[in-house]
């Protein structure tokens, strides 16, 4: 398949693919934002042990963690419009991009809710009691004492999620969304230099993943200044 390997194509392809990076990043940003909202909403019933709702949360998380994201994409893209037809809502003109963002948002929401749960449980109950004892309300105790520490704790997990999400978005070309991977398909077909295209694509994904990793590590160090051990571990 394809023509003989020629490295010069890589130089040619990278800028062409980069032209579509913004779509990829747009999907990542939107779906992570959506995921954070959903993740919080899904985590709360389990954190506060709200009867019925915490079961719904658990089922939600199981489904999105336990099924391939490709299948989730298909289910939402093809299934949701059918479902909405039932209530006379026509979504055939909604662009595929919206379904992609929705799927990735729902998917990362499941993972984010688990990260939130773990992080909140990591903040010891005693600090919350101390907050109550100085007269803070439950809301203030959560926002000023629990949340900042939980956010710092969950940052490594969150970093993994964002990078995983970045890579997962490459699947959205299956719905015909023209992001980087989608563009690579057309470039490959047009030039018949598939290996070079995929090599270029990997280099770009790798560069962004590494950049994100650095960024989160920096943020984490800033947020965990109060834990000297974190710095020590990192320097080893």
């Amino acid at each position, binding site marked *: 398949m394809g023509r003989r390997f020629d490295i010069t194509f890589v130089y040619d392809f990278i800028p062409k693919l980069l032209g579509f990076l913004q779509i990829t990043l747009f999907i990542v940003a939107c779906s992570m934002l959506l995921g954070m909202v959903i993740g919080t909403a899904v985590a709360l019933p389990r954190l506060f042990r709200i009867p019925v709702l915490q079961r719904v949360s658990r089922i939600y998380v199981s489904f999105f963690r336990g099924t391939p994201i490709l299948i989730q994409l298909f289910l939402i893209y093809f299934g949701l419009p059918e479902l909405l037809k039932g209530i006379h809502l026509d979504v055939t003109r909604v662009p595929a991009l919206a379904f992609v963002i929705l799927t990735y948002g729902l998917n990362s929401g499941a993972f984010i809710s688990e990260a939130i749960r773990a992080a909140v449980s990591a903040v010891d109950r005693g600090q919350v009691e101390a907050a109550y*004892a100085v*007269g*803070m309300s439950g809301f203030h105790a959560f926002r000023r004492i629990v949340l900042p520490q939980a956010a710092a704790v969950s940052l490594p997990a969150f970093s993994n999620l964002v990078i995983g999400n970045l890579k997962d978005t490459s699947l959205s070309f299956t719905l015909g969304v023209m992001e980087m991977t989608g563009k690579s398909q057309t470039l490959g077909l047009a030039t018949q230099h598939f290996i070079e295209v995929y090599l270029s694509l990997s280099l770009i994904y790798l560069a962004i993943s590494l950049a994100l990793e650095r960024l989160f590590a920096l943020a984490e160090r800033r947020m965990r200044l109060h834990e000297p051990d974190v710095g020590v571990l990192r320097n080893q």
Partner: protein
Amino acid sequence: MIQVRGLTKSYGKQKVLGHIDLQLQKGEVTAILGPSGSGKTTLLRCLNFLEKPNAGEIAIGDVTVNCKGAGKRDIHKLRQKTAMVFQNYHLFKHKTALENVMEGLVVVQKLLKADARARSQLMLDKVGLADKQDAYPSQLSGGQQQRVGIARALALNPEVVLFDEPTSALDPERVGEVLEVIRSIAREGITMIIVTHEMAFARDVSNHVVFMDDGAIVEEGPPQELFGSPKEERTRQFLKRMTQEWSYTI
């Protein structure tokens, strides 16, 4: 000025506090003694509703709360009259010593940042930690953390400061510095309730001693009386055991 009437508390079927009556005067230092599991911590935590009592009445200063029907407002009012020093300090780990002390002043008492800071610095100075104001809890020794905890409680200017075994999580060589701080604020006439196993300290610092056993107050009175000539057999047994243990550890 602090009056507890008919306070009861159960966990499920297990009765932990049975009908506690207690009255303390302003400026008085009360020590609560008693064997492990007698309900000392529970009583203290009921006073600021970290545990919800089942029944009874708590009056602190001008706030009176009937425990049974107590709502958020009542609890909030009561908590504003009290401050607590915990056995394990429970400092806010992501905040510096100074921020720990400021937190309640800014968030609850709505002081201006600058005023809160000035007051907090004063309090840290009082517990001998003026030079540690920018340190995070993880950078402080246990004794220093507990002194920050004390500063955090004092800054609120509460009617009463509740201490739950403030030195029992500390290394023996750190106990002295914390007791010294508590002793110095006791001299300022701040109302305090201290749950402690430090008998010598209790005897020395308190004006009033309460001995609890099995969820009830067995005996109370001035320290000279309670330590010198306890009326109840259970008190005698307890004190004997405590002083024995004490002499073993020397």
